[in-house]
């Protein structure tokens, strides 16, 4: 990892200071999410990442990166990012122009739908933090207290899509040249239950990237879920057999989990289970019968009226 720092005014002291901090951070971490940092935890929802990816794909000709605003809610120890929108901007060697009017407008529009979301920061695609980022960050600090900066490497420069979050901190010698340093924050992903189910479906498209996937019918889904459980059971079984034959050392905690698993299957006497099963099946069959009856009834009713 390479923590790039921005300086407004160059100073040797700042340089040395920043290098030492960077090396400490390097020692403490290797990937986002693993750091012991002082600062809020950033929880991102997948819809934000998909949105950023989409705006990157739709960027204007010649733009190497896109930026946008992050919306969400702030907690005591965490910042939850739930929405975002991209903001048009122009970037060249020595100047950067951000359409702030647009950003304000969009925020107003979004606020009408979800009034509880506030600006929590901004995002940029790309791998490095450039000088322009500092300027943009300053603008955002006017909009929100302590904005976070999210970067996503959509061009996959380092082979992975590094998703990082940063907080800006003042540093330097008081009274003299001051600079800004971006301290990294730990990034976690938060899903609503329904989001996770949606992601499960979307994940299926990634196995066959060029084809598309339809939504499956009901019994197929149950079959699919059962298949997944079966796979998991197969993995566990191979592990157990390895341990039994001595190929792998037994791990006590895993053994305890396995005991839990086996004990979880409820011990019901055969007759009790029969009655429970049958009553459930009867309920379901009755409901099916009733709904079929209703459908036939309304179809008949319609035919009679038409007569």
């Amino acid at each position, binding site marked *: 990892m390479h923590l790039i720092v921005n300086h407004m005014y160059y100073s040797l002291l700042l340089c040395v200071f920043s290098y030492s901090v960077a090396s400490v951070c390097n020692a403490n971490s290797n990937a986002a999410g693993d750091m012991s940092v002082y600062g809020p935890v950033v929880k991102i929802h*997948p*819809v934000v*990442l*998909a*949105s950023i*990816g*989409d705006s990157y794909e*739709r960027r*204007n000709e010649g733009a190497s990166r896109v930026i946008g605003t992050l919306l969400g809610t702030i907690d005591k120890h965490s910042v939850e990012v739930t929405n975002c*929108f991209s*903001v*048009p901007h122009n970037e060249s060697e020595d100047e950067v122009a951000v*359409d702030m009017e*647009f950003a304000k*407008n969009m925020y107003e*529009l979004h606020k*009408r*739908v*979800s009034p509880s979301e506030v600006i929590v920061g901004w995002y940029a695609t790309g791998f490095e933090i450039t000088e322009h980022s500092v300027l943009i960050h300053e603008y955002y600090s006017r909009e929100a207290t302590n904005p976070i900066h999210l970067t996503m490497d959509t061009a*996959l420069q380092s082979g992975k*899509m590094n*998703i990082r979050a940063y907080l800006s901190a003042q540093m330097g010698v008081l009274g003299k040249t001051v600079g800004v340093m971006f301290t990294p924050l730990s990034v976690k*992903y938060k*899903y609503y*239950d*329904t*989001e996770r*189910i*949606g*992601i499960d*479906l*979307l*994940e299926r*498209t*990634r196995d066959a990237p060029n084809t*598309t996937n*339809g*939504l499956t019918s*009901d*019994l197929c*889904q*149950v079959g699919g*879920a059962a298949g*997944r*459980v079966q796979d998991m059971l197969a993995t566990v079984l191979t592990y157990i057999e390895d341990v039994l034959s001595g190929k792998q050392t037994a791990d006590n905690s895993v053994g305890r989990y396995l005991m839990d698993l086996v004990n979880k*299957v409820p*011990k019901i006497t055969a007759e009790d*289970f029969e009655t429970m*099963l049958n009553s*459930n*099946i009867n*309920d*379901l069959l009755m409901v099916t019968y009733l*709904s*079929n009856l*209703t*459908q036939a009834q*309304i179809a008949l009713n319609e035919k009679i*009226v*038409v007569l």
Partner: protein
Amino acid sequence: MATRKETPSTPTAPMASTSPGATLDSPVKQIQIEGLVVLKMIKHYQEEGQGSEVVQGVLLGLVVEDRLEITNCFPFPQHTEDDADFDEVQYQMEMMRSLRHVNIDHLHVGWYQSTYYGSFVSRALLDSQFSYQHAIEESVVLIYDPIKTARGSLSLKAYRLTPKLMEICKEKDFSAEGLKKALIGFEHMFEEVPIVIKNSHLINVLMWELEEKCTVADKHELLNLSSSNHLEKSLQLLMDRVDDMSQDIVKYNTYSRNLSKQQQQKHQYIQRRQQENAQRQTRGETPLPEEDVSKMFKPPQPPPRMDTLLIAGQINNYCQNVKEFTSQNLGKLFMAEALQGHNS
């Protein structure tokens, strides 16, 4: 169910455009949705739609041959005050203009709505979809069922009005004769369009990354055996609708009885008139003038049949949902039996 008044914008010329030269009467055969749209809809409901409120939003995309590609969407604010009507159109316009700046497809291709246990066949939906489809030939309404999704698998359906129903809505002729002429049954109101999900390669990369980084465990809601809660609510809604239906039928019956009684009365009156005229003629007096019979006996107002059609469609939908649900649960119960049988 909260009925919402949605006023979709009457699209001005630049908005309602499809690929030039496309045959506009070829219906849409397939819907292609991007993952981003799915996630946005889920998020919108999750955050703003708790309870039995419906959330709505607009779909953006374009038409490619016979496919409708939906590439983005944005949510609609809830109806809080009544003077927000004007704001809706303005909100929509502004949103689309802003999205155009960032190169997002700004062509209006439909709208989405969340539903509570499948109860979406209503007058409001019909009207909205009709005005959309009238203005933009290929528009669809996406119905997202959050409760079914929470049970384990994404439930998203796309509907369009059948051409027959479009005709009727255009004529605004909802009487029994009108519907009889068009031979519309409740099964021919909506046509469902198959959906496929497509993700761009970048999003696919993102999915791989997320799987690696994220440690959210699978909860397997799909294999959950509990069914009574869901069944109860569905059946409750079904019963309400059936009650509505029976009331409607009673109304229709009284109407037809009144009509036939009136016919009889008319007949009797005419007969009496004729008798009297015959008597007067024999007596040599001038016959009484023929009065306008129809003005005397005003025919009773025929009840509108559209509501019946909608209720029937809704009942059909509920029944379909219940049957799907029971089939899933039966499968699960048999699996549980096998599991127990294995153990004991």
